């Protein structure tokens, strides 16, 4: 890149947005005027009274026709896209100038910050609706980078992300959090209990791995196995239960419907009888059968 002697600080335009809109008046630009960024009555909005309108984010545009220094590179104004002369830190710094309070909690040092992800990689400001904010469109935006999650959602058993009826932010806080995997609640289980409170208990008879971490048995992004289990029952159960008798017997392919049908293999496998696998509140429920 071409480095030049530091230019004199660029000046702002003379008429603000009216200057910019003389040239930039396509629908792709004007969509912003249907959003909260263009609310004159909001003193915090770029178009609020006394604010700098387009130049709040894009920086001084007075010298737009000429050249202006951004991050040591010759550029016109700050553009929020891949390949912009303004680095990710500059782009994000501009957004955080107003949104530090909204997003600031652990944004710095969060996973997206660690990977140099720019706010504009996820957010679209110049459109009437920002896809990443809509439940039915959010996963499509996250999947642009999180390709593994995109294929998980195609697996036989997964949350309804592919149908657009659940958003990634139902469980994750993309701006950053001090929790594991940027979860919205303090722990994995607390996050799952938002929609599955019936499994919270505390129960009279608890199932230890359930009370500790749902992902001991389930892959919340999707799996080939029913209920998004990480392995098919009975093998999943037998990797922790070795009591003498049926828990420790090898259940091989002789127990299929076409052979000697085995109650430990077919139907709901172990849950044919131990149906209270998440815990039981029945006084006689210590084997999770009541």
């Amino acid at each position, binding site marked *: 890149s071409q480095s030049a002697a530091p230019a004199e600080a660029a000046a*702002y335009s003379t*008429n*603000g947005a*009216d200057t910019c*809109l003389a040239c930039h008046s396509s629908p792709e630009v004007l969509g912003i005027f249907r959003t909260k960024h263009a609310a*004159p009555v909001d003193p915090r909005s770029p178009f*609020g009274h006394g*604010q700098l*309108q387009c130049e709040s984010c894009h920086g001084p545009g007075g010298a737009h026709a000429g050249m202006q220094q951004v991050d040591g590179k010759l550029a016109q104004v700050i553009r929020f896209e891949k*390949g912009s002369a303004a680095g990710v830190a500059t782009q994000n710094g501009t957004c955080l100038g107003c949104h530090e309070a909204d997003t600031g*909690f652990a944004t*710095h*040092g969060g996973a997206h910050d660690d990977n140099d992800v720019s706010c504009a990689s996820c957010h679209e400001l110049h459109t009437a609706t920002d896809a990443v904010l809509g439940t039915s469109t959010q996963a499509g935006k996250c999947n642009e980078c999180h*390709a593994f999650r*995109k*294929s*998980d959602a195609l*697996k036989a058993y997964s949350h309804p992300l592919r149908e657009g*009826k659940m958003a990634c932010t139902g469980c994750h806080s993309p701006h950053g959090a*001090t*929790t594991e995997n940027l979860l919205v609640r*303090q722990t994995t289980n607390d996050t799952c*209990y938002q929609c599955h*409170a*019936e499994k919270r*208990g505390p129960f*009279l008879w608890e199932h*230890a791995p359930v*009370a*500790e971490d749902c992902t001991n048995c389930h892959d919340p992004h999707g799996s080939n*196995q029913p209920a998004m289990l990480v392995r*098919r029952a009975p*093998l999943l159960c*037998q990797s*922790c239960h*070795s009591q*003498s008798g049926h828990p420790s*017997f*090898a259940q*091989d392919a*002789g*127990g299929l*419907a076409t*052979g000697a049908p*085995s*109650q430990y293999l*077919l*139907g709901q496998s172990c849950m*044919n*009888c131990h*149906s209270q696998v998440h815990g*039981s*509140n*029945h*006084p*006689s429920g*210590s*084997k999770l*059968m*009541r």
Partner: protein
Amino acid sequence: GQSATPDTSEWKCERCPFASGYQADVTAGSSYVSDDAATIGDATGYDEQGAYVNVDGAGLYATANHRLSWRVEDLGLDSRVVEIDGARPGTFAYRLAYSQLPRHRFDTTSTIFTRSSGNLLALPSTWTFAGTTSGLTDLAASLVSRDIESERRTLEIGGQYLPTARFRLFADYQRQERDGTDILGGSYFTNSSLLPRHFDYQTDQVDAGIRYDAERGFLKLAYYGSFFDDKFDAVRWDNPFVTVPGAEQGALAAAPDNDFQQLVLTGNYRAPWMDTNISFSAAMGRGTQNDTLLPYTTNANLAAGALPRSTLDAEIDTTNLALTVVSKPFPNARFKFAIRYDERDNKTSQLPWSRVIADSFLSGETDLNVPYGFDRLRMNVSGDYRPFETVRVAAGYDYTELDRDFQEVAEQTEDTGWGRVQWRPNQYLDISARGGISRREVNRYDEMLAASLGQNPLLRKFNLAYRYRQFGELSASASFPELPITIGAQATYADDSYSNSLLGLTAGDELRLAVDVSWSVSDQASVYLSGGFDDIDSQQAGSGAFSTPDWQASHSDQFYSAGGGLRIAGIGDKVDLQLDYTRAQGTTQIDVTGGGGPSRFPDLESTLDSLRVKILYRWSEKLEASLQLRYENFPTEDWALQGVAPDTLPTILTLGAQPYDDEVWIAGIGFRYLIGVQ
């Protein structure tokens, strides 16, 4: 240098088309679904053959001081969403949202049970009891089709108020109702019935708090309350099998009403030195459950004795503390320190309970309930450095210590070291590689406790076992200055070795690949292709003789996905075309050797073929018409269900659910009308 602040008094914004007045777009249309299909209807609402009328839309009403926007989606379906958001920007905002989510699990199931009052699953009036399913002579005549389906309805009311630029009050209330039918095994000593259990849940959640935003950070104090209510206390059913006298009707405990309340203080401070950011979170919570307990048994012939108490009065105290510090002592170097402590302190008292076995006979034993609890400390330190503008190297160390009550392992630690290099030679190429190892050690596996629980002392539970993990990730994205093509590729690999485990999980590994290519052919047209591969393998060992290993099992989950799509806008200035095709195939191979029978199971398979085509025609500036065609084909092979009729298993009366084999065409036509100034 810093630009001089301009005099904006003359910035009239006359060209600014601020939203004012009313503008909306509404799409109304109808679709025809070619077949009944549980899996296609799951979450969409298109579960039955036939015609559907549907409405989508969004609108905005704006004045100088107020904005009110609304959005409706799939209004004509069981998966309808309605959202209303209003605000006086900068002062207050409010939200009202309603959504429904249909859950269709099986439409191939049938049952003999009919649901009568008090959530009792009753047998047919004429019923012949027997010891095994083959003796249930009235079964065939009594079976009635019963789909396994449910619905979740969520109502949300929320708002926030900014009394000053620095203070923000917020509150959000959400009511979730979930009711319908799922499957629950109702067991007797030697046999069991899969019950079409009806459930009716309600969860009320409240998030409320106050936030103060200072110049360099903020402080937030928030309350979270979650209150779960189960309309039923039990699931009662008439036992279809010959039983011990008095055990003709069984009862399973329903999910107990419970609540969880938490106070969370979070804060963030942007220190002026070394570009340092400090964020912390401190949460104290309490969960309680005090439902009236059922009696030991429904069998009046058994002298089961009194319960030690009529309710459990269970109580969990949770503590969650976290501190993260990120700092840039040098322009090109950044350090991060994060420490987190999570505790689940189960204060529920331990009491002696005299179990009755399946309402059939007294166990003669006393079981103490086990109030599991744990506390976990996680700490990680990492640093990254840019030796050159295009290269970034990072390394980190994570330490986790987990202490558990009442389990085979009291203390467990895990040390993880990782390194990462990222190379961005220009705006067109980004390559990153990360790798590391992780070692989980357990202080002592209490084989005495394991034996007291009837476990084989040689077993090591996979979440409590020594584990040595090696992992690596590689990602690359490339675009081309002269070609409007972007390519992305990702790969991860993890290998787990449980080398101290003779029984239980002994090894596991996962390999994942993903690639996607997108090509912006022109301003109007774009094409994309994507593909994914996932292979998750695990090995485990067991002992049928309750001794050293005498059988082995391997479990291999493979998953392929491939997709492509085409977007063409403005064909003849009038027509937009959108086409997406996806194929996703899951295959699970299971081998169990040492059981004496055939070891290789038939493959468990699921194949999804999904085609979506949308043609949009702009009739006028305000009216658009659209044709939509959707094809979904989802055949599966599942030996756990294949050919398992209600009476296939001698001792289990199942619901006869069959593997999914759904194929559906959905054709639809819609008209979108724009209202107001766009």
